[in-house]
């Protein structure tokens, strides 16, 4: 199988650092894999949308369609010994880390086979055995947490790194600056990945940030602005960043990306931005279409084969949903499990403590 060199369409922009080369090494297999996985992710999110509308998913549900290249490009640059932590928009990161569709859908529907046994929900996916530390609902909180994982990595000297993902809205959180300062002082192997989809809920980046140049927001910490719609650019940047942080401590990667859906299911996503803006991005920058074009241009696949992949993704998703639906609700006894690792046999209480109490395992 022959290696390919492909140029990113937009140059990287560096802050206090020389950016990596625009020429990215890849292989036909990798490109096909990018295509397949992104198609699957996209399909999963569209299906989640339908399940939500069918009232099979409750509460919040934040979809990732549009941003798939970030998940995919990052995975291509690292191993499962490296850690990832993100916010509530976590379904595709979970998939990228090797989570299954059934685990994802079962979790979304609050079933026993969910990746958190139905106890977490949309915002709280985890896959610790492949270095995925969730799934966090509090804006910004995952940034110090990610730096802490990197602290653990450095402490145990295992040569791995942590990618901690956050949005443009989260980028203004003070705890980010606190964690970055400490990470810089301690040379922690952490990559702060700002997924700049240009809106935090209904707030455009420039309304929330006096300086929306997030790759520069580390000030004394170097940064790189990356085309987050280009999986190869993301891969290049993440590879570069991983090497950098192991030697020098933290770096910021700003991924210029876009979310097609509204913020969560109650947001139509069209009051604070124009439909033209959305369709413009879909037409010109869509991460899947970019890879499709590459595959065709380099004659690595055919229109038909790619269509077939999309069809089979659809089937795969439908089958996973069917399976997830068969998964039962959690057993009522699960109410009292996992409160503690070690419950010391203490009694815990339900809403009516005289009626429902349990001994904690």
């Amino acid at each position, binding site marked *: 199988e022959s290696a390919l060199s492909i140029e990113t369409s937009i140059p990287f922009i560096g802050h206090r650092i020389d950016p990596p080369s625009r020429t990215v090494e890849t292989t036909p297999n990798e490109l096909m894999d990018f295509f397949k996985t992104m198609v699957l992710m996209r399909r999963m999110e569209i299906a989640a949308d339908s399940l939500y509308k069918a009232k099979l998913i409750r*509460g*919040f549900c934040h979809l990732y369609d549009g941003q798939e290249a970030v998940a995919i490009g990052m995975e291509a640059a690292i191993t499962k010994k490296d850690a990832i932590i993100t916010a509530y928009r976590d379904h595709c990161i979970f998939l990228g880390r090797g989570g299954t569709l059934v685990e994802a859908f079962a979790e979304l529907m609050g079933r026993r086979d969910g990746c958190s046994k139905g*106890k977490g*929900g949309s915002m709280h996916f985890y896959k610790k055995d492949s270095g995925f530390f969730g799934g966090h609902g509090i*804006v910004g909180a995952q940034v110090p947490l990610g730096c802490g994982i990197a602290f653990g990595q450095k402490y145990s000297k295992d040569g791995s790194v942590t990618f901690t993902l956050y949005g443009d809205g989260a980028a203004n*959180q003070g705890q980010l600056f606190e964690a970055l300062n400490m990470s810089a002082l301690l040379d922690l192997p952490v990559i702060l990945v700002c997924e700049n989809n240009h809106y935090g809920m209904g707030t455009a980046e420039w309304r929330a940030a006096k300086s929306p140049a997030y790759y520069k927001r580390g000030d004394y910490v170097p940064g790189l602005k990356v085309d987050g719609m280009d999986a190869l650019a993301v891969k290049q940047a993440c590879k570069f960043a991983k090497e950098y942080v192991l030697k020098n401590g933290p770096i910021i990667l700003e991924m210029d990306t876009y979310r097609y859906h509204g913020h969560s299911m109650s947001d139509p996503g069209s009051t604070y931005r124009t439909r033209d803006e959305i369709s413009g991005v879909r037409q010109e920058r869509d991460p899947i279409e970019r890879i499709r074009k590459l595959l065709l241009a380099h004659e690595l696949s055919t229109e038909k084969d790619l269509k077939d992949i999309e069809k089979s993704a659809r089937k795969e998703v439908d089958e996973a949903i069917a399976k997830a639906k068969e998964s039962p609700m959690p057993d009522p006894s*699960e109410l*009292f499990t996992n409160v503690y690792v070690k419950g010391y046999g203490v009694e815990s209480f339900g809403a009516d403590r005289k*009626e429902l109490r349990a001994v904690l395992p």
Partner: protein
Amino acid sequence: KEMTVRDALNSALDEEMSADPTVFVMGEEVGEYQGAYKITKGLLDKYGPERVVDTPITEAGFTGIGVGAAYHGLRPVVEFMTFNFSMQAIDHIINSAAKSNYMSAGQISVPIVFRGPNGAAAGVGAQHSQCYAAWFGSCPGLKVLAPYSSEDARGLLKAAIRDPDPVVFLENELLYGESFPISAEALDSSFSLPIGKAKIEREGKDVTIVAYSKMVGYALQAAERLSKEGISAEVINLRSIRPLDRRAINASVRKTNRLVTVEEGFPQHGVGAEICASVVEESFEYLDAPVERISGADVPMPYAADLERLAVPQVEDIVRAAKRACFRAK
């Protein structure tokens, strides 16, 4: 006439902003987005961006700024998208707002309202479901209100905004869309409710059920069911967690001799525990049965629908507890 809790809150904000130019609203998505839960709908149009201030997602920063503005004499109404996020700013609520008037011997008063949805919603999981009534209610310097009906919402929010002290105003997302009958009096722009006074929502003689926020509705449903079984329950809507209307609670228990407390928050050190302590302290000899406590389960909120249902009080829990209290003489 009927009005939703959402409209009650929205109209209260609108009227107070119109009556007092020092009142302003600040928070995430309160302006252009019209509020994450649309409580501030229309206010930006009417009062402009100086008085309806959209903020970045930086709770510590904007809460501190709100408190500072109150030091200067403005009357900020700070919205937390939910009170779960108030934890990022809780130092300012407690140390900068609640304690300043005391530490300065009255020089620095802090006329501010912190408001937003509190407690469990539906399916939002462990990090978005916590009830902060007990925490804030423990802090001298704060007043803590929890409306149930639209009348509560209007009357208490107006009182909170006019009050010279920091008020934590705990709403409930699941009530926003509920409609309640509302009187002409309550619709008047001068309307307000007294802070620190509970409301007897339903009179009864056999057992007292004390609740706040959404649980008042459950308590009323429970009372209805109990009445069919011949038990006459008195339902008290606390309205105010701090000051707590100990007088009203004790007066009722002295009449019924039995007490059930209902809250959605975690049980330990909760509002129910305080009510129990207050009644034991002041009306011990009137109690004919152990106080029954209904509360959120002592676990983080699970997502799955069946577990979630087990984690928050249900009407049947209240009914069962009331019967236990009634069928057991001391």
